[in-house]
């Protein structure tokens, strides 16, 4: 089957030439998309100081920090950027996957805070409610999220002390009593619980099931409920992201059940699948780290060291690769394909690159890498502390989204169709 095109060219030369120029496998962006990118950067210049980088799990230590983050949420809401991909009826802009991607990349690069309304408001609580929620739930809960209100800040109650990566083994129990559910149990590693107004809770509603995946339901829980206690879990360098949340006969109205009782597992899986953009944001963040490190190398003179040059080049390649893999998922989603193993593939890869990049960065900083990442204003802090932040928190991130090993198992089963191990 020869593909010389001369006969073809003879006939339709004009159309063909057009085809070649415009429709080749395309890694570029439209003018509108580039405009949007510039608009985001304009927003950053106007609203964020160049002296602080809010990315890399920096959710703000102090109340002042938190107030600032919420003020950014508010401004993002004004532009409808909090809910960029939501349908217009829920206050969104209903933009394409590609445009969402651009936003996530920029958020990663500039470290724009306050984009997710707690840990989960915009990313999966909203979209899940649109799919599974009642009309009343939609009317009550979506507007505060879209508006960037304090009342739209959510945390997510999945993990429990003994469940680890094995989410389905959760034990927190919600018992139906009249038109209420009474909740008892404990959640752990709950990011943002100390800031959130609401919790997106997965609890067991039936213990007599053959497969532990059955008998799980999802609830909307007021964090101000009686019997609910939030306990800070400081991390090993003293920062406060995580919490324990205790439920002692916490009563919530039955109408705060999401979807169908005991069918929560598939809803929960759907919610998890919304978290596709991890690699996009992370590659933006790592691009920033790499540019900052290159500048540091230029200023310190170590850019002349061939070892530094070689490693910078390697990381450029890795970050570019990760970014392109993230784009692959976006493109697949855009054309309606189902993305299954790709986010796991990219998550595992991202953890590894970030781990190596942060260690390399720390080596480059030498003595300056000794400085505590919480002391962002010390005069010995370099690169706004982002290297130390990454160095100490990579493992936390690796664990937070399911461990890297678990991600690789998923890719093995769904990406390579290998038998379960």
């Amino acid at each position, binding site marked *: *089957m*020869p*593909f*010389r*095109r*001369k006969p073809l*060219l003879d006939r339709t030369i004009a159309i063909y030439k057009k*085809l*070649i120029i415009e*429709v*080749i*496998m*395309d*890694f*570029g962006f439209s003018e509108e*998309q580039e405009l949007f990118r*510039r608009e985001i*950067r*304009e927003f950053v*210049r106007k609203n964020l100081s160049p002296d602080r980088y809010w990315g890399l799990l920096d959710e703000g230590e102090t109340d002042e920090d938190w107030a600032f983050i919420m003020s950014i949420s508010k401004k993002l809401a004004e532009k409808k950027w909090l809910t960029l991909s939501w349908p217009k009826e829920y206050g969104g802009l209903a933009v394409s996957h*590609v445009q969402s991607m651009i936003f996530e990349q920029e958020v990663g*690069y*500039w470290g724009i805070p306050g984009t997710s309304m707690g840990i989960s408001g915009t990313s999966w609580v909203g979209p899940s409610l649109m799919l599974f929620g009642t009309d009343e739930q939609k009317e009550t809960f979506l507007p505060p999220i879209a508006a960037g209100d304090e009342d739209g800040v959510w945390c997510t109650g999945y993990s429990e002390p003994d469940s680890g990566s094995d989410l389905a083994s959760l034990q927190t129990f919600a018992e139906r009593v009249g038109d209420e559910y009474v909740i008892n149990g404990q959640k752990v590693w709950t990011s943002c619980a100390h800031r959130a107004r609401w919790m997106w809770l997965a609890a067991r509603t039936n213990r007599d099931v053959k497969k532990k995946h059955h008998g799980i339901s999802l609830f909307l829980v007021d964090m101000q409920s009686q019997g609910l206690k939030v306990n800070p879990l400081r991390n090993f360098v003293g920062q406060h992201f995580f919490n324990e949340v205790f439920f002692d006969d916490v009563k919530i109205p039955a109408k705060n059940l999401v979807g169908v009782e005991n069918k929560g597992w598939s809803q929960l899986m759907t919610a998890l699948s919304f978290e596709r953009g991890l690699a996009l944001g992370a590659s933006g963040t790592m691009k*920033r780290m790499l*540019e*900052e490190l*290159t*500048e540091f190398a*230029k200023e310190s003179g170590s*850019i002349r060291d061939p070892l530094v*040059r*070689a490693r*910078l*080049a*390697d990381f*450029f*390649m890795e970050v*570019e*690769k*990760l970014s*392109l*893999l993230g*784009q*692959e998922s976006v*493109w697949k989603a855009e*054309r309606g394909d189902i993305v299954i193993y790709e986010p796991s*593939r*990219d998550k595992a*890869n991202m953890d590894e690159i970030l781990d190596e990049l942060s260690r390399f960065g720390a080596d480059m900083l030498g003595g300056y890498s000794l400085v505590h990442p919480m002391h962002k204003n010390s005069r010995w802090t370099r690169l706004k502390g982002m290297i130390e932040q990454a160095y100490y928190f990579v493992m936390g991130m690796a664990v937070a989204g399911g461990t890297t*090993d678990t991600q*690789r*198992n998923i*890719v*093995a089963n769904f*990406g*390579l169709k*290998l*038998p*379960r*191990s």
Partner: protein
Amino acid sequence: MDLALTKDQEMIQKSSREFFKKECPTDAVRDMRAKDQGYDKKLWKKMVKLGYSGLVFPEEYGGSDGDFVELALLMEEMGRALVPSPFFPTIQCALALLQFGSKEQKAKFLPGIAEKGTTWSIAHSERSGRLNTSDIEMMAVAEGDGFNLSGTKLFVPYAATAGRFLVTCLTKANEEAGNGENGITVFIVNPKADGVRIEGVPTVAQDGRCEVTFENVHVSEIDILGSLGKGADIIDTIIQQSAVLKAAEMYGGARAVLELTVNYTKERKQFDRPLASFQAVQHRLVNLMTEIDGLKYLVFKAAWGFAKNNPDRSINSAAKLKANAVHSAVCRQGMYLHGAIGWTEEMDIGLYHRQTRAMDFDGGSSDLHREVIACEMEKRTPLYKQVPA
């Protein structure tokens, strides 16, 4: 952003895959490699007839106006099918002719490549065994209407059957200027010229490598490619383009080896369970797949840059850098996961592994490309320091 192939691209991919599947099965690869010249001239003629050699030439030179992405797709299929052929060095030279050749040179040489399948080779690396232009020692001394070339080139691919060479030399005029980089000139040389001696180097890839010795070989001024003393830029362009094409070929090969290995580990049982059910095996395969997926997009983003006439040096070099890492890794780990049987000459995986070093060499080593990227990074103003336009 749309990562789908165009209809034309899909057609090239599909038709070339089918062609090589039929005409170049692995047994044929073994036979072809065993030949002195390292390939089968009949297969080469068929490839020429299909328009492969002139794919990206303008119509006026007998080509079909294809773009760089199509060329990369073709290389991918050649990598997948292990096609032994002088395609790569020929296209390396042809692209340089297209970009730097005079009108006369193009008219004289390109139709021969596109229609008659004249093969070319690039005689560049010398005793350093590297592609860095700073390692060039071969001299061209002005005499009469041109230059006399003397020196030895090493690891010249498929040189024994080439119709022409591109040869890099130091030209005296520029050497006096004191700058080695800019003192280089590229000559078009007929291998049949007096003073050219070609000797085969026994390589593990059996890819027709030769040592080519030039002893006072006279080359007329009209056979200078580009201009006198400006050869370093030509070589740089050749390396950038061929890095991407070679990376595409390596991507095809790497994907094939991954598939071979996945299939093997699914079938093969050990301790009463499929090898592919061991977590250690799975994670190796997953890591390889991740890198191969990533390589694909680096390659095609780079190729897209050339197709849009806006190549990105960092991406081009990143594609080859990643290819060098991935291709070797999947071959070595693939061999490992095949166990002892992968080591035998009957299994196809060894055919790929035999090429790993040659693939690494052609189109530039990892060190060379790391330095290209580092230079670009050094030059660039970071985004966060840019003042908005």
